């Protein structure tokens, strides 16, 4: 029995990581119909930006600030202006393919300009463990979970209770009508991308000490986030948390009780089952418009 508890807690810890990455993914889809296959790389990159700044001699706290600003510039503004704007009017699929190519580009750039090796990354959360229900849980994992919850609570509040949030939702549901009623569509979309960039920068800060800074760490994260977002509910930001935690736990349980060789298949099967029986995801609203 203690084994099961171990696995559950470990699964939640990993799941929190997937959840954070999934939140941004869902947000981008919800507000601008962008499927961002480079989301995993977006979480990997800010850590490297911060490491680069530290190599140039800056102290950690300064590197964090600069890293976050750079991330918002590159992955928010830059991403939107250079990739999304020219492509979005042509439909969802070409943009999705372009983000796949972008993922490769970012990965290779980091590998080439930084290193193919994994580097350690300093943690703002102290490195110890706390005992929860008799099991050691790393503080870093708790930090990630805290950020995930904060992000979801904050975003849900933003989207549902503030005027800006309502405008963003209007843009998501029907940009043409939104424009007619005076919503500054371009600015709202830009805001979404900036929020996502900020979120992935924070996520990077908390996840990289656990995952280590390596150019390839985005691959697994991106795929897990994609599944988590769909399973949780692609049109509800809080679906991302449920999806992420669920995937983390299911993955651990599958590895322990079914087979470590096939563990990667289980989240996939879960994905298919959810789509078949509840296409809007566990927490999603049934789709008002065609996907």
């Amino acid at each position, binding site marked *: 029995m203690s084994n099961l508890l*171990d696995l559950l807690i*470990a*699964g939640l810890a990993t799941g929190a990581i997937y959840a954070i990455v999934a939140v941004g993914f869902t947000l981008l889809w919800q507000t601008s119909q962008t499927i961002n296959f480079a989301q995993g790389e977006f979480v990997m990159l800010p850590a490297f930006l911060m490491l680069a700044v530290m190599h140039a001699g800056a102290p950690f706290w300064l590197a964090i600030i600069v890293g976050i600003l750079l991330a918002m510039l590159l992955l928010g503004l830059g991403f939107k202006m250079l990739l999304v704007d020219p492509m979005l009017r042509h439909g969802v699929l070409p943009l999705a393919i372009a983000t796949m190519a972008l993922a490769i580009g970012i990965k290779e750039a980091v*590998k080439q300009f930084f290193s193919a090796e*994994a580097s*350690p990354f300093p943690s703002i959360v102290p490195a110890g463990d706390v005992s929860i229900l008799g099991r050691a849980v790393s503080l870093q994992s708790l930090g990630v979970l805290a950020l995930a919850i904060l992000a979801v609570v904050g975003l849900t509040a933003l989207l549902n209770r503030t005027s800006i949030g309502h405008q963003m939702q209007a843009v998501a549901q029907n940009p043409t009508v939104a424009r007619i009623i005076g919503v500054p569509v371009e600015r709202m979309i830009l805001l979404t991308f900036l929020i996502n960039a900020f979120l992935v920068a924070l996520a990077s800060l908390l996840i990289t000490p656990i995952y280590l800074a*390596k*150019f390839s760490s985005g691959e697994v994260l991106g795929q897990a986030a994609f599944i988590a977002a769909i399973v949780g509910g692609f049109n509800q930001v809080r679906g991302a948390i449920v999806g992420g935690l669920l995937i*983390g736990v299911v993955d651990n349980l599958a590895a322990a009780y079914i087979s470590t060789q096939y563990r990667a298949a289980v989240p996939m099967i879960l994905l298919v089952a959810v789509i078949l029986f509840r296409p809007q995801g566990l927490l999603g609203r049934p789709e008002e418009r065609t996907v």
Partner: protein
Amino acid sequence: MKPANLAAVFFAAILASTAFAQSSGPIKLADVAELSGGGATVGNNWKNGIDLAVEEINAKGGILGRKIEVTHADSQSNPGVARAQVQKALDSEPYVLLGPGYSGSVKVTAPLVAEAGITQIMGGEAAELTQAGNKFLFRTSFGQQSSMPKVAKYLNDEVKAKSVAVVWVNNDFGRGGRDVITKEFGGYGIKVAADISTEAGQADFAADVSKIKAANPDAVFIYLNEEESARILKELKRQGVMVPLVGETTLVGQKVIELAGDAANGARGHVGLTTDAPVELIKQFRGKFAKKYNYVPDHNGIKGYLAIYMIKATTEKMGKVDPKAFADTLHGLTIKAADEPGILMDVTFDQNGDIDRQGFLVEVIEGKQVVKQVLPKLH
């Protein structure tokens, strides 16, 4: 002289000079390595080691007065691509072919290279590579058939383990090691308490460690890549697994110690090549590498470096640059570090291309790799 005759003489001169071009001018080496994909760490270290050696040798005038030129091609950690790249490299008739590092890629490219009659010096460690009767293939590190028996012997004689949990990475490297050591355990009567495969790049080892605990072994044999080794060591510590953790180079390297911190203390392993060896030449190599590339190399960096010096030693032994006689000369050759410092440690190559060299049993103590035993060269 009439223009036509002049042209003819000119033409003949060019033809004649190209005939000589092979025996003068730079020595061309071709390298095919995992520069991208899952094996990027391996391939890039290998490449950097090669480049360092080439730079050193060229600075001193090259081999027999001829400079070395090496071209690097990316196999993308994909055996199919490796085959294509090797094919391309062979078309330009290199002196020697270097790489790949991944055993799967070596396996598919070795027949091509052997057919072309060119020597191949590679980094793969799978046992079967030198057991296929290939007369042109040479290792730069111990094959798993040499290293695993030493680990099994250590587990049996010193740790006195009766049951061992085996954790391995699910690629040709990991599976090869797991297959050989499982066989060795059979010989000693050691039970495999748990047989756990993991994925390359895996970050979460909670489930795997949970399984290890449930199996209650006397020791754990860990055969993963460096980053994953660090992660599993942390998880083992977190879940309070106290039994001896034994592995190979990838468990106790500097990188793992750096990434795992305290959790690496107590880990032990058999190591063929390590930048932490108490060998002066290796320390110098490490310093040179770190100065040029700003990081400490892993054993793949040493392998690449050694490959070039193997070529130098063999060519100097022959006294000429002769690709056809290369393999025969290297078979049975002993290269001493006193004669050729670049070889770092004395080594003998047998008729199969396997190496005989000293090895080490190390333990990580307080964040440093400490050599507990030196396992001498057999001959």
